[in-house]
């Protein structure tokens, strides 16, 4: 018998982006697909690069601090706290303890707001828009609280080299406690919505898995690493600000479920647990807050003169909502500007984890997997040029539609 050789197309290559499939930020994915299955994944970042490091090496340290604050629109305190901690170590500036506590309180409130924002985005990607509305409505409370404490909803401008610029006085404590109570109630509601829902479990359980070994080798940070069982948290590992005074633990999903699977569902659990942990940390910090001044060197001109005279290198780190942020700073005597400044945002470390997460999954799962590391593109991209790319095949809306359709299919199968 003569066999007829049929040439079957072995698959397609498709590109998603630079309009982002999960968030309103640009990154491009290149995927080799067979049917619905992703065989090979690759990504191209860089569409939101603004040359922040280049600009920073041409400005004095106080200007760089404000520039650093504007690297990210969600983590308003993250980059400024990392930068000033590096500068303080070089200049040996001892920050007053009260300032350390205020920094930590704002840092924890920021974590609550960022995780709630993420919960809303993740729910939206699954087509679960009522949970998206719920999460973002709850988030408004912490935004109001941040505005009440610092004057701004984002970019709090509360950090200064050698301390903080505004106090949190005992008169304000009841308002903070009121919000903490609100979040405790909201936590129970959100946990029920996200963790007990059958559809969320079916979409997220064993989807986008990052194993413990892969996580160790690819070096992700924050909830992405902890959801894979990597116990890594700058607040616990490396005592800084007021965190060294507290007894806090790593939040891993096995605290709730007794096991670590490293999937999207575990990343949801990790972030929800961290919201609860942050409520506890804020309460501890308020109870223990010492008295004292807010700034080591109140006058900016004196501060700049001091910084011009010092030389050295140091690393400042902070546990952002997405994981470790690190700033390397080198100062030279007689120069206003840092002679070297390297910013490492948390998503920078998490990008490589996308590849093992996506390979073997379906196209409709891309939005939730991409969103599951909570990528912050403008944090990671720091130099600006928009590429005109006509090769775009799948739009964000189309992908979102695919994802919603998959949820509906699962729900329909449940009804049968």
């Amino acid at each position: 018998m003569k066999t007829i050789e049929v040439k079957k197309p072995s698959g397609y290559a498709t590109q998603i982006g630079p309009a982002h499939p999960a968030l309103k930020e640009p990154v491009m994915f290149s995927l080799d697909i067979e049917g619905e299955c992703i065989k090979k994944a690759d990504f191209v970042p860089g569409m939101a690069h603004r040359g922040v490091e280049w600009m920073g090496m041409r400005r004095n340290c106080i200007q760089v601090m404000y520039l650093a604050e504007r690297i990210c629109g969600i983590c308003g305190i993250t980059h400024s706290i990392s930068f000033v901690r590096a500068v303080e170590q070089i200049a040996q500036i001892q920050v007053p303890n009260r300032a350390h506590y205020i920094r930590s309180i704002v840092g924890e409130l920021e974590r609550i707001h960022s995780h709630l924002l993420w919960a809303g985005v993740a729910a939206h990607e699954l087509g679960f828009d009522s949970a998206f509305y719920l999460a973002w409505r709850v988030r408004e409370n912490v935004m109001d609280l941040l505005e009440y404490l610092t004057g701004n909803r984002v970019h709090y401008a509360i950090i200064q080299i050698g301390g903080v610029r505004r106090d949190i006085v005992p008169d304000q404590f009841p308002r903070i406690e009121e919000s903490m109570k609100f979040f405790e109630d909201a936590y129970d509601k959100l946990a029920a919505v996200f963790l007990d829902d059958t559809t969320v479990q079916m979409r997220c359980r064993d989807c986008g898995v990052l194993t413990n070994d892969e996580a160790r080798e690819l070096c992700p940070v924050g909830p992405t690493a902890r959801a894979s069982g990597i116990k890594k948290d700058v607040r616990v590992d490396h005592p800084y600000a007021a965190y060294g005074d507290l007894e806090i633990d790593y939040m891993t999903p096995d605290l709730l479920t007794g096991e670590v699977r490293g999937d999207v569902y575990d990343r949801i659990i990790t972030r929800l647990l961290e919201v609860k942990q942050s409520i506890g940390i804020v309460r501890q910090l308020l109870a223990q807050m010492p008295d004292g001044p807010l700034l080591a060197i109140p006058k900016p001109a004196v501060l700049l003169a001091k910084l011009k005279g010092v030389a050295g290198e140091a690393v400042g780190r902070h546990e952002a909502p997405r994981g470790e942020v690190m700033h390397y700073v080198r100062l030279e005597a007689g120069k206003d500007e840092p002679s070297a400044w390297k910013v490492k945002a948390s998503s920078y470390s998490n990008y490589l984890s996308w590849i093992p997460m996506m390979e073997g999954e379906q196209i409709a799962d891309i939005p939730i997997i991409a969103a599951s590391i909570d990528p912050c593109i403008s944090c990671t991209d720091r130099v600006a040029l928009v590429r005109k790319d006509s090769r775009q095949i799948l739009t964000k809306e189309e992908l979102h539609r695919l994802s919603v359709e998959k949820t509906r299919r699962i729900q329909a199968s449940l009804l049968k």
Partner: protein
Amino acid sequence: MSLLTPQQIADVLQAAAGAGFVSARCTEWAEGVKGRKSKQVWLKIARESLIPTLKRLVEIQYPHVSVIAFADTGAQVELMYHFHVYWGIPHEEILVTLAVPLDKTDLRVPTITGIIPGALTSEREKQEMLGIEVVDIPDGRRLFLPEDFPQGVYPWRKDETGIPADMVKNLWATGRDNLQFNDNPPPPAAPAAPQGETK
């Protein structure tokens, strides 16, 4: 697991670096009421010693690579490899920095992705931003810079290969009327101050 002190780590790595060892120092920094200290080890080594030193570090604990930082010091480009060891043990993490100076006449450095695959992002970024060559890098494409960015321009260098003046667009210098595609009406002019009035 008995933990090594920062000084012991410095000694162990100095032995591993062998002839390529240049200098080492340990620093500490305390914050907060309890004054718990964070610890750092800084080593400066030659390029040839990078891989043996890192292999010795892996024996202490599989390190987390944070980032490769840089400094352009004139005749040299310095790369600072930041690793963490003893993570996962509360308050005991140690930041180990391996600084590797490279002469601008020979900007080559071996890849460390064979030992820690997570360093790939940072190595790709160093290639495009500093013009160094990471030997045997598994994926040598550009990462953040677009395909049409000119070859031979390295944004983080401070010499003639850095960003030339004509590539810098200062927003303040453009002037509102010179902006391309700008058909906005001119901004409203402030009303002239009444004559003879003093503030």
